[in-house]
């Protein structure tokens, strides 16, 4: 009989917030949580909902906070949420870059300058030109994403360009060079880049097909003995409906672990095929 390996929580270093729920102004064809303007599977979180988790996180020794969605800047309280979070620790926002007009970037700069801790941004881009990006992220998004990148950069907030391997060449040495060149063309001398594999769930399962049966972890994988590369060994994801094991599995009710962070300090079984991607590719959603 095949046993599913269990991963304990060694420490709670990273707390994620699904701060915009699954609501997004885009409907990217590779989105593993299928975010879209009409997807209310998870709703946006208010500052009042987030604050108790920040306080609880501090008592558990949390080191950093990440915000994702959906699109975080659809959340009307996003700037206030960042200000409050930065009193507890460093914060990173994963955004599609479309809602970053200059005045917002100026306010974000002011928030970053005032804080003791780092405020960082990741902007998603899935091709180095409109022809390769727009079929994934939506018509016209390439130019608008680059505008967002530039707007943040002009305020001294140099974002990490986050690219998924929707095209095979995106993560190759040559592919990376093309992204660096693109960012340098914007006048950014310190290009920052993160490459992520795709998860074959959500919209991506429709685009390229779901996981195969063999893409699952077994007792034999546990023989490697060390799960410290998996983010489920050191992080949790908070949504408006409670605390999930990780940012990937929020559309799986069985991956919800509890109501408070403290309810979720127990091991979790690596039974989902997406766990295979994290293990095999050594993925961490953190920067």
């Amino acid at each position, binding site marked *: 009989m095949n046993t599913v390996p269990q991963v304990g929580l060694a*420490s709670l270093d990273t707390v994620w917030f699904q701060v915009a729920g*699954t609501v997004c102004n885009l*409907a990217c*064809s590779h989105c593993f*949580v*299928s975010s*879209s*303007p*009409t*997807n*209310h*599977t998870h709703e946006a979180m208010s500052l009042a909902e987030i604050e108790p988790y920040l306080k609880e*996180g*501090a*008592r*558990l*020794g*949390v*080191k*950093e906070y990440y915000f994702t969605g959906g699109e975080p800047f659809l959340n009307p309280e996003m700037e206030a949420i960042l200000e409050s979070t930065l009193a*507890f*620790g*460093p914060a990173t926002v994963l955004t599609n870059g479309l809602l970053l007009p200059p005045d917002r970037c100026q306010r974000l700069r002011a928030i*970053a300058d005032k804080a003791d*801790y*780092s*405020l*960082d*941004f990741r902007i998603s881009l899935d091709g180095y030109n409109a022809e390769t990006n727009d*079929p994934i992220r*939506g*018509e016209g998004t390439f130019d608008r994403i680059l505008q967002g990148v530039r707007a943040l950069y002009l305020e*001294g*907030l*140099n974002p990490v360009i986050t690219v998924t391997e929707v095209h095979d060449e995106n993560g190759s040495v040559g592919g990376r060079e093309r992204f660096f060149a693109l960012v340098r063309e914007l006048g950014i*001398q*310190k290009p*920052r*880049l993160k490459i992520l594999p795709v998860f074959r*769930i*959500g*919209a991506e*399962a429709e685009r390229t097909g*779901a996981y195969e049966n063999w893409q699952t972890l077994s007792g034999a994988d546990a023989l490697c003995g060390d799960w410290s590369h998996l983010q489920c060994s050191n992080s949790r994801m908070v949504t408006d*409906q*409670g605390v999930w094991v990780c940012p990937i599995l929020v*559309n*799986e*009710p*069985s991956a*919800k*672990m*509890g*109501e408070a962070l*403290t*309810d*979720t*300090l*127990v091991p979790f079984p690596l039974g989902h095929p997406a766990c295979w991607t994290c293990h095999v590719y050594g993925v*961490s959603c953190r920067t």
Partner: protein
Amino acid sequence: MSNRTPEDPDARRRRTEERERLVAHRGLATWGEKLVPLGRFREATEKTGRRLSRVERDEERSRFLSGSAEKAPIEGPYSRVAVCGGVYNNHFALTALLDDAARRGAEAVYCLGDLGGFGPNPEKVRPLLEQGEVLTIQGNYEASLSTGHDDCDCGYTDPRDNHFAEVSYGYTASHASPDFKRWMGTLPKTRRVNVGSRELLLVHGSPRRINEFLFQSTTPVAFLEVLLDQHGCDGFLCTHTGLHWHRQLPSGRDVVNVGVIGRPANDGNTHVWYSLLEERNDKLNVELLPLEYDHDALAKEMRTEELPEEFVETVLSGWWTTCLEILPARERSLSRF
């Protein structure tokens, strides 16, 4: 009349699909790969997961945060100690440090590991440590070299950082003698020292991981308080990042990243940094001290050894040219490259 070229069928298909995705979830939720009525998803999540009582949560938290078994013997007490981080083969800076610490009346000199990497001729470091009676712990370099690991285990994640980390490690691994590597393996991984009445824990990266990066802008107060509770000490000293800082915590305890003497602190100055600690008026007095050394001589020796010109540039300019991607946003924004 229309000038529009007929739309490519592929583009038309994509647009239709995009429109479908935009509205697909009206009243529905994604449950795994299925769309289900929103209410059904909510009902399921309502019932899932643990919901502990207040008392149970307190117990769970104490269990989770229970103390560490680490308990190195306590050295000292000293009234004044000098502590340095990564030497990175910089024997010129180590010589300068031993002089400076003696001049300032340090009763003991500690080194928090990473003796090799970056600079030239690793074998020149050991005699200085021995002559100076430097009390040393292992860094990730010593842990890797003494166990024959093929990687420095610095903990970088970006390929650009890893490329230069490999060059550094490869050079040191092939230029350090087997005897030196064995000696590295005999060094303790932590030490404890009393400075005045304060018990300080000495680690390389963090009390819990030899290669954890503790940068000032990404190391919160509450996180540090928890670590200190777990390790039962009045403060800890670390290095590994190459950037020095000191934080006095609300509990009155201290955490110091002592910096490194191996390369400058990415601020356009050629000097390096170490720390001098003493207890004064019931507080830990921490001085983060710039240390001048013969950086031109170091650069010359690095060129003789054909180390990467990028490393030499750092020594001569005070700006890091490699291993930059690991820097948090704040520290990176202050960096030239």
